[in-house]
């Protein structure tokens, strides 16, 4: 079981520009095995959602539950992957993948075997002894994915993981992630500002408003797998969402002009 439940979650930040509402009274249930994609304008609070679920930040109000137990901090059942791979340069590829297991105190033999399995899964076993700076951007992100999966998390949290990659590499990683998800049945929460990417991957897409900290729309995606970015149906749905996104951005900038903003 891995069901995430957010009830009336609010979170805001004090910045130099004033108080910014990242999340405002958000209710959300993410079912086990779901691939949820969240899109929205930049700076709208998408990453805050993931940081809260990961336990790196705490809500001002409301509760976050994973299978009915409160989230109180980072744990191996929820692993976050960032836009930058954030790999450890002092460790080889395989030791990076095994890092989480080492923190859990697993036996060395078991750690290495498990890390090898995961490197196989992301097709990088040939690079197990390489240093991080020797890998390309796409390879690094795959190592980060393997490193997260090594902990066998119930929920995989991905914060624009492919945003810094070129289109070709991104295509390839979409395929790999889709396959991984089908194989493992993990719950994935995936944040992106790329609407087509969201439709390409998700079973459900949520659209977030620009500055009110709420989800404004929800789109179930029932397209057959495996999908391609160029699929006609996919492009159609994406264009609907993109129009809604434009509207969200427009209302937000309109609101900024209002003195009561």
């Amino acid at each position, binding site marked *: 079981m891995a069901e995430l439940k957010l009830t009336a979650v609010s979170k805001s930040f004090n910045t130099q520009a004033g108080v910014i509402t990242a999340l405002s009274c958000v209710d959300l249930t993410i079912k086990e095995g779901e691939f949820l994609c969240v899109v929205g304008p930049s700076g709208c609070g998408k990453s805050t959602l993931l940081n809260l679920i*990961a336990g*790196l930040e705490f809500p001002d109000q409301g509760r976050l539950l994973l299978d009915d137990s409160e989230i109180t901090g*980072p*744990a*191996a059942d929820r*692993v*976050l992957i*960032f836009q*930058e791979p*954030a*790999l*450890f*340069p*002092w*460790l080889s590829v395989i030791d990076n993948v095994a*890092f*989480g297991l*080492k*923190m*859990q105190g697993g036996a060395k033999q078991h750690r290495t075997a498990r890390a090898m399995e995961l490197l196989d899964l992301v*097709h*990088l076993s*040939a*690079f197990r002894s*390489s*240093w*991080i*700076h*020797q*890998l*390309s951007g796409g*390879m690094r992100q795959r190592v*980060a994915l393997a*490193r*997260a999966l090594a*902990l066998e998390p119930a929920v995989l949290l991905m914060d624009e993981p492919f945003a810094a990659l070129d289109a070709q590499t991104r295509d*390839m990683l979409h395929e790999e992630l889709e396959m991984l998800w089908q194989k493992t049945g993990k719950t994935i929460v995936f944040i992106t500002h790329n609407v087509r990417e969201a439709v390409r991957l998700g079973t459900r897409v949520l659209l977030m408003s620009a500055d009110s900290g709420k989800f404004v729309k929800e789109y179930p995606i029932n397209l057959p797998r495996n999908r391609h970015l160029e699929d006609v149906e996919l492009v159609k749905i994406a264009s609907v969402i993109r129009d809604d996104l434009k509207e969200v951005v427009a209302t937000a900038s309109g609101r900024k002009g209002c003195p009561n903003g």
Partner: protein
Amino acid sequence: MAKRGNPAISRAHALPSYSRKNSSRVQTIGIRLLFFTFLFILWQTLFALKIWNEMLFPGPLEVITTAVAVLQDGSMATAVLASLKRLITGYGISVAVGIPLGLIMGRNRLIDETFGTLALGLQALPSICWLPLAILWFGLNEIAICFVVIMGSVMAISLAVRDGVRGLSPLLLRAARVLGADGASFYIHVLFPAALPSVVTGARLGWSFAWRSLMAAELLYGTVGLGSTLSMGRELHDMGLVVATMLIIIAIGLIADRLLFGGMDTLIRARWGTER
């Protein structure tokens, strides 16, 4: 898949080939050799011209003869060993205290604002200024000298490590937390290795500060050691001994730097990549 990855690896190999690297290395060594031969000849010529009193300006041959003599009769070895013993004790303590202190200062605001500021202030004081106090506190003994060595190097080490920790990518540290690193294992398995380039820089700086502090302390406080061999040479008007000792001090400094930190440099360059 491996094929697709290969360009990244082959790029790394597309550096200047080894033979070209080697020939430029030979050239550099040749230039250095020429320069130092020139210096040596200049020295000998100036000496032969007898512009200055022989007592004040020894010739290279006299220095070499003295160096060979003190190396052979074992008096230099005794002095070197005595100095190295103090250096290793004092520097060892500096490293053992300075690195953890630097790691903690880099992470903890309160500690940084208190101890960090103190370290920064004390850094402005040449460590030899501690000698009078040290002699009053500990007596005229080894502990006093070690204290001066420690005060000379511990601040430099901890401040360099602190700066290194401060410069780490916050994302890297968050990733480590997400993967379950916390408490002591966060310091041991993440913070220390992540800051390793700065740790090595700090340790290296600390080493040269410790070496300087030790020589200053030994010059002022006469006991067996390289610094006191220098004082002795002055008192005996044995300029050959003075210059020979100076050369040996330089040699030890260079060799120790190579031995202790050369390997670390190679390791860091291999792991972090040459672009850093």
